[in-house]
């Protein structure tokens, strides 16, 4: 089952899926229409970017007032698979002699930050970490650094991972320093 949850603070969103019945392509398409997104660029993106765009959209709608200062929103993301979902498609392209720049450009994990930044016109700091598991300690440390130094006013933090039909997104927005344990409650 695919589920979309908001926690009681209203500032986190989680999407997870692991069953084969509901494939990722139809899920993302369904969410696009459900949210009434009018953003044709969406259909050019790989699934990692599509999932990031959907998650961010859900978060923005819940926290409209937070996203006013567009040059002050930091994005700190992490995942396990990097861009391997697109890497596999590019690698198949090499084998079949059908390499396409439209696929290759998505073989970098940070492109999802680029797509989110473009969609929302956020010109600010962004970083992409890779690890086997969600590291709330690292994410909270870096978010606190950006906020404490006044380099951002609020940060979009979380996990966005896609590998074929397995996908998971856990995002939240914070505008004050957050402890590792608090971020765990929001994201785990």
């Amino acid at each position, binding site marked *: 089952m695919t589920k979309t949850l908001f926690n009681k603070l209203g500032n986190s969103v989680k999407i997870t899926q692991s069953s084969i019945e509901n494939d990722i392509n139809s899920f993302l398409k369904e969410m696009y229409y459900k949210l009434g997104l009018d953003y044709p660029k969406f259909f050019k993106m790989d699934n990692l970017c599509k999932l990031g765009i959907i998650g961010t959209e859900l978060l923005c709608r819940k926290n409209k007032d937070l996203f006013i200062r567009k040059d002050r929103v930091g994005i700190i993301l992490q995942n396990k698979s990097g861009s*391997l979902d697109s890497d*596999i498609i590019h690698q198949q392209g*090499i084998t079949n002699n059908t390499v396409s*720049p439209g696929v290759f450009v998505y073989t*970098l994990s940070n492109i999802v930050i680029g797509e989110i930044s473009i969609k929302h016109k956020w*010109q600010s700091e962004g970083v992409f970490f890779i*690890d086997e598991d969600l590291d709330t300690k690292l994410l909270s*440390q870096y978010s606190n650094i950006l906020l404490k130094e006044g380099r951002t006013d609020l940060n979009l933090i979380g996990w966005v991972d896609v590998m074929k039909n397995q996908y998971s997104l856990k995002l939240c927005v914070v505008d004050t320093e957050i402890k590792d344990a608090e971020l765990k409650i929001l994201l785990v």
Partner: protein
Amino acid sequence: MFIGAENIISPLGNSAKETFLRMKNGEGSIKYKDGLFLSTFSPLQDEILPLLIDSISDSLSFVNETILLKSKTLLIVSTTKGEINSINSHIKNSHLSYLSDNIKTFFNCIDKGIVVSTACVSGLQSLIIANDMINHNHYDNVIICGGDLASQFVITGFKSFYALSDAPCSPFDKDRKGLNIGEAASTIIMSNNRNLYKETPLKFLGGCSINDANHISAPDREAEGLIKSINNTLDICNVMSNDIDFINAHGTATVYNDGMEAKAFSKLGFNNTPVNSLKGYFGHTLGAAAVIETAISLQSMKNNLLLKCKGFENQDFDSKLDILTENRDIEVSTILKTSSGFGGFNASVIIQKI
């Protein structure tokens, strides 16, 4: 914040000093191979992990081990594609954390390993994050290690973008035709303790990375992101633009990237500041690029010798820049290093002599 103990493992040598010496003599490693100009290791390397380990080992020989073992050390691996050659045979190894996990296990001085993967800006962002982590007392030292291979994966991709030059690349030149892919591993160690270093280190003043929110693969023609990044960095470091003695640019030698960078430097009034790009020596080494280029720039500062922008001959832009056509002996105290990459990322840092 101190920075030093740099290493470079490249087709030009196995240390920063050796690589710098050969570059000083005008040598490069870009060669014609199978219809392309590339900078590759000979013999060919299929894995990046052993090179990263060699690179870190050499860097560690420039620091005091007792101090290192007594303090808290973070490893940051900067890479775009890691072990991409394993994607068909051992996909597990193609997960980028395979590198940080294995390096951490190999060296007993590392308390934690992380991976930063933000395209061609990965290296500079790793230095910025290292600075942040030490400044905020999460670690005492950070080993920053960048590495990427000139894989078929990457070559075919850039080829499909028509981004590869059919000649040795010529950064900032009027007739530049694109980039050459290169491969390398490079390490830099940052620390809050000057005594960690056996040789005199330099000071890392700070930096920042800004997304231009413009396009995922095309540079912003108005260079807004890079300008904002450099302005923020000058601000953070409390440095005036006329205090900058030298700029080591990204300079991939693609038409649009170099045009964007030249625009940023002109708009910021850097027309009389010496500039180079090092891509003409060893190509674009992706996740290693900003680490290896910073390592060479540290060597430039230590030797008071700026390297010529190999491949550059003729100015292209309305507003002329001081792009180095010959090596220049000059006292350099403060430098600016910049990087820009796919995803709209633009980073800059300032390094100064003690």
